[in-house]
């Protein structure tokens, strides 16, 4: 079976569930609507997703650390498929976002000038031919135009403390909606073309968002990669193939679970020569037997410096009911009861010290890696 893996960079879950084209594929797929990203920014998020392992272990725990990826210890999705004799090709926004190992070709597109729909359809045509030659392929497509819009109109115009940005929530929402609508159109065109080429019969289609994006929820974060709140940490994953039953799984899972799930579906054995994944296959969730796991995340708050730090300084653990955050840059801690306070507006750490202590221990347990 081939694999087409699409990342819609910065797609928020609250928009995905209402996206016209998203809705169509969600209906016929296994849709995970609460996939907690390891990091609320692409570099950290995608390295964790591609290796099934948190950045604390792989070495990629900041915007700056992609070169630290321990490729000899952690086998990536692309490498697994390359070793299985897939033809592997990636089309990405930037050289920092994915571990390059395992890609026969990893091409950087120009997010400002390239027409990604046209470009990716051309790639589908190319790999349709590869498939017809009897070869299996892995095609990675990165839709980056939500990022492009945010970069041009938010990152470059405001800083994390611009009152003008945070006082215009409605304008921010509208701007994001326009960006998302274009992403949804892109997805419709790509999925339509896959159908037209009749590729879906023998192709697993995986569509993820890597992280969400702020529309002005919390002062201090104009986009993402600062805090560890749900509006950026919640990502999504869709697994689509005729052999996979349709299901909407609302239970929390982790982005590090995506790789083991793909290997499970493709029946590729885990390579014992590498370190074990921290993630686990999500197939039991599709079958209604999944056991929720605590999710761990890290971010790098630039504070007033204007640039991301080289080490994470915001750490979080999350369950379906609680979120515990440790801000190591100032020593503060936060606890949110997600059932009662999904927007994470009331820090209840002083009210529930026992719960905080329990989650603090979990955070320490997961993060201990030296």
């Amino acid at each position, binding site marked *: 079976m081939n694999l087409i893996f699409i990342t819609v960079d910065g797609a928020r879950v609250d928009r995905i569930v209402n996206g016209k084209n998203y809705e169509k594929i969600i209906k016929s797929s296994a849709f995970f609507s609460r996939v907690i990203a390891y990091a609320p920014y692409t570099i950290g998020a995608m390295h964790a997703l591609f290796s099934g392992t948190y950045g604390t272990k792989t*070495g990629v725990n900041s*915007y*700056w*650390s*992609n*070169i*630290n990826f*321990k490729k000899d210890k952690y086998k990536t999705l692309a490498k697994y498929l390359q070793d299985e004799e897939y033809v592997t090709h990636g089309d990405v*926004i*930037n*050289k*920092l976002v994915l571990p390059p190992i395992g890609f026969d070709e990893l091409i950087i597109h120009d997010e400002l000038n390239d027409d990604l729909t046209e470009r990716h359809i051309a790639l589908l045509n190319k790999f349709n031919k590869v498939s017809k030659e009897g070869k299996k392929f892995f095609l990675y497509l990165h839709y980056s135009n939500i*990022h492009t819009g*945010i*970069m*041009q109109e938010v*990152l*470059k115009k405001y800083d994390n403390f611009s009152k003008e940005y945070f006082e215009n929530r409605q304008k921010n929402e509208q701007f994001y909606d326009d960006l998302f609508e274009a992403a949804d159109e892109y997805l419709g065109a790509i999925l339509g073309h896959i159908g037209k080429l009749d590729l879906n019969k023998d192709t697993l289609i995986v569509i993820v968002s890597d992280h969400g994006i702020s529309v002005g929820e919390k002062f201090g974060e104009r986009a993402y*990669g600062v805090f560890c709140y749900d509006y950026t940490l919640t990502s999504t994953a869709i697994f689509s193939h005729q052999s996979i039953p349709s299901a909407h799984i609302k239970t929390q899972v982790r982005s590090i679970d995506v790789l083991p799930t793909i290997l499970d579906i493709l029946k590729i054995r885990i390579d014992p020569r590498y370190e074990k994944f921290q993630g686990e296959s999500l197939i039991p969730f599709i079958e209604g037997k999944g056991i929720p796991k605590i999710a761990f995340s890290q971010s790098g708050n630039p504070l007033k410096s*204007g*640039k*991301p730090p080289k*080490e994470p300084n915001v750490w979080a653990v999350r369950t379906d009911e609680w979120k515990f955050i440790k801000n*190591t840059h100032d020593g503060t801690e936060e606890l949110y009861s997600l059932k009662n306070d999904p927007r994470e507006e009331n820090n209840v750490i002083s009210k529930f010290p026992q719960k905080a*202590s329990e989650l*603090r*221990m979990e955070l*320490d*347990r997961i*993060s*201990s*890696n*030296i």
Partner: protein
Amino acid sequence: MKPNVFLLILDSFRADKFYDKTKTSITPNIDRLVKSGSYFSQTISSADGTLLSWSSIFTAKYPFKTGIRSSRFNKLNKNATTYFEVLQKQGYNFYAYLPVLSETVGLFPDFQNDDCFYDFFLGISNGLGHKILKKLEHNQMKEPWFFLVHAMDLHPPIVVPKEFDNEKFGTNYYEKKVSTVDTWIGKILNRLDLEKTVLIITADHGSYVQSALIDDKQIETNPNATFQIALSKIANKAPKALRPLKDKLFFMREKISEQKKQETVKNLNLLPHEKRAILAGRADKDHFLFDDKLRIPLLFVGKNVPKTSIIKSQVRTVDILPTISELIGTNIIENTDGRSLVPLMEGKSLPELPIYLESNPLVIKESNDVIGIRTSDFKYFRDKADATKRVHLYDLSKDPFEDFNISEINLHKVAEMEEILQKIIRDTPQIENKENDEESEEIARELRKLGYL
């Protein structure tokens, strides 16, 4: 003129066999030195293996921050500073006798003596002593000098010279060897001018003594050391291509040795600490962090060293070089874990600091390693990768031999110690694999393209 420094590291020397009421060796020279200087009787190494311990001693940082992990081999991180750099700026000339593996880790400076690296099995009592005496005898070293000697006398396999193989020198092979070492310390002292030299005697880590007194009978499982050394020497000369075979032979030997040890102890009523000492092998997969392998001697004597005799405060190997620096009047490297112990020598108090502990991974195959924390009251360690596995907690004030693991009945203390451990790990990020300036600039360019800078 700055004082000379002689740092003598005696591999695998346990504190309780160096200076303690319970020891049975004959050590008049060590005893005299303890009374003439400052002896720290509760010195804890951060690691139970040589390379990690060295990395910690010479950088004054906990091992995991240095880039050196184990043999076969990680080098010192290029951003890490060693005390050799500080001493070099002060005009020190470096001389050493170190086992051959030292070359590989990037920790040491260029030494001025060409014969600085020796065959792995040399100790001061079987060859190294003569070399040291020669260096000291004819003022061969340019002052001020820093003379580093790492001696393997007490590293297993231990060979006791015939003239010391007598009960009057100790009740077991280890203590007899300590008596041997002491005579050589005496010979070295005769050549050393302590008026212008600071002498430091310590160890990299401790050791299990494979011996126990059961019903007035000494049980020992120290294998035939002479035979083992001969075998290792042959194996070391084998070409690199035969290394897998050599490793295989090592494990086979260890397995046979383990079977013999099991046979020896099967009908004996041993306490947990006696049993683990007797059964311990060099190829054990499960690693622990008991005091047997961590509590080491630390003695300062000579120029500028107050005569305070025994100091019982818990101190750390990361404190050794900052202390030497203060004694010789040089700078202390900032932002390290170590601190100078001179205030304690002067009778002042210093707040106790918890000690980060780490077991040394096996070289050839994967081992189950542990990390932990020691205070003067409690020892805590657990699986390196999973805080819930192989959890150990000992109340050192009531259970100094660490016989009773109380982790399951004292969860509060486990949580408290884990928090201390995490704080050390969290507050001080690892420095290995950092990018260099050029790489950093390239990443910055890419981040700029993405709008993040």
